[in-house]
């Protein structure tokens, strides 16, 4: 522990430029705005979240109670404020305050009626919580423009929020993968999970039943890849460890570093979320989860990947 603690302190004290965090912030801001816009235009928020709605609501979150309970006026006010805070996050206006307000307001709204909760609520609030502490407004933001006169800056910010985002992402996939315990998911059986899920009228975007039946082997392949990719998510942490210790020996380390493991991992993840969004109606789940992905690379690594204009 005596040796480990200084490493933890050193890791949590690292600084880097803010571009990956700014990209996460922009995507999370869009996520907040989209989540609110999905319930505002049709007035479904009044049916779901007000005392005049379809069910008797339980104890309100403290902010809703403070504002007089879940009346239409309160809920609309909170939704509009959430929208504004989401825009603040997206454009980087008083960025930390916008992140904090987005978190508080979004939590207050979504806790009014726990029955309509979505997993993307938690994915988003976990991201917002980290953005409160991240210096994500240091670049690509109106805050940056006001401070430096430019839209981007190389000012250093703490790197630890990006590290925690990566850990959070691994937790989400690993935990959900381990809980896919059906014989239809786990290799060795039918691998028919996706085939059945695509038929579910609750979540499917289109009726692809017959298509899925005709392409059954493809759905089996999709089931296998999904399950394997989720349960092996901790390999991503191993990849970061191998990159940090690239000067040490070992075949596995060499293999992980030879081709950037993160890149392949992210390509599968993006394809996976694109497939979910294309075939299933699960709100902005895919977008919000993908808002963690820019954290997979530091700004320095981004620059290395970017082709230089003067390169011949």
């Amino acid at each position: 522990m005596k040796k480990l603690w200084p490493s933890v302190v050193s890791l949590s004290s690292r600084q880097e430029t803010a571009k990956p965090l700014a990209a996460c912030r922009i995507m999370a801001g869009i996520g907040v705005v989209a989540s609110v816009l999905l319930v505002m235009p049709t007035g479904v928020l009044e049916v779901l979240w007000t005392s005049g709605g379809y069910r008797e609501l339980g104890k309100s979150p403290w902010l809703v109670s403070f504002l007089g309970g879940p009346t239409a006026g309160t809920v609309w006010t909170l939704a509009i404020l959430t929208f504004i805070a989401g825009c603040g996050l997206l454009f980087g206006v008083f960025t930390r305050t916008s992140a904090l307000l987005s978190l508080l307001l979004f939590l207050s709204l979504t806790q009014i009626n726990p029955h309509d909760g979505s997993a993307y609520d938690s994915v988003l609030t976990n991201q917002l919580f980290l953005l409160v502490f991240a210096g994500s407004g240091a670049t690509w933001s109106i805050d940056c423009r006001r401070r430096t006169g430019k839209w981007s800056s190389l000012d250093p910010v703490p790197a630890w929020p990006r590290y925690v985002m990566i850990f959070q992402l691994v937790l989400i996939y690993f935990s959900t993968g381990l809980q896919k315990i059906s014989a239809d998911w786990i290799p060795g059986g039918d691998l028919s999970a996706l085939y059945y899920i695509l038929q579910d009228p609750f979540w499917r975007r289109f009726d692809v039943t017959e298509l899925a039946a005709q392409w059954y082997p493809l759905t089996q392949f999709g089931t296998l890849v999904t399950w394997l990719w989720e349960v092996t998510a901790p390999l991503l942490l191993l990849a970061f460890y191998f990159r940090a210790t690239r000067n040490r020996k070992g075949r596995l380390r060499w293999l992980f570093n030879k081709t950037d493991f993160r890149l392949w991992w992210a390509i599968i993840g993006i394809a996976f979320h694109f497939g979910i969004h294309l075939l299933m109606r699960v709100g902005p789940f895919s977008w919000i989860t993908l808002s963690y992905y820019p954290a997979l690379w530091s700004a320095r690594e981004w620059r290395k990947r970017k082709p230089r204009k003067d390169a011949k």
Partner: protein
Amino acid sequence: MKNKAKAIFTKRWWPHARAALILFHIIAITAGSIPVLVDERAMTKEAWQDPVAQDEFKKWAERLGDDWTAEDVESTAWTVAKGLLDFQSAVEAPFEPYYQFSGTRQRWRMFPAPVKNFPRLRIDIQSANSEWTTVYQMGSSEHQWLAHYFNRDRFRAALNLYAWGVHEEAYEEFTAWTARQAAKEFPKASKLRVSFESIPAIEKVDASNQIEGRTSNSPTELKHERVINLAPFQATSKVSPTSGAPVPPRAHCPLPKATLSPRVAAWPSKEITAREGTGAPLAIATGLSNSSPQGQ
């Protein structure tokens, strides 16, 4: 002096305090992510008797070999599921206030087990000549009444819970709310029926690439069926100040009051006829109640 103290804190203590706080956060989110076989709502013997759950036990018994029977698998799974659930509850309990106020709750049960009998919301109204007409059917482009509400992913998340028999009281409230909307929209209708059709999945293709199992003419079973007399809702002239919907006169309700909220229990007598379907808690047994990105 003040500046010196501040400098000491910033340089010496703050890095350690920050590392400790980050570590606390990581421990908290890891504790909240401990996987479970089923959630707390599904830890009932009744839920585990569901045909899909039983089918899972059979499949696992076949995989594990001749020494295992479906009963053995069920018994072992029960012990493991209970142990994991107790462990998870104990580990995450100290962090509960942290999750609550920071929004860092970790529940990632998404599609843990596919179902093979899909629920689909259907709403019918009965006209004066006793004919039933479907006005809403989930996924239908023809029957679209209130689809602008029900097709929203948040509403579907709630309906998914009710389809599997979770929160029955809220389901009664939902059906009564639907009746209020129907009374406004269809003033000549006499009754409203809310139910979930249970649609069997299409089984796999056969060797000649033909689809086996369900056809479009296959019969569907209605579950959680509620038939509501609309007359009391239409008779009232009172209007809710918030939703603008008619407020029915107060009277007792034939359903057991213990299962109803005061709001539903106070509605007109004989207006709701509950015909509980075989609402199988398979989703709960297999974890489907939290089965999707929607279910938390």
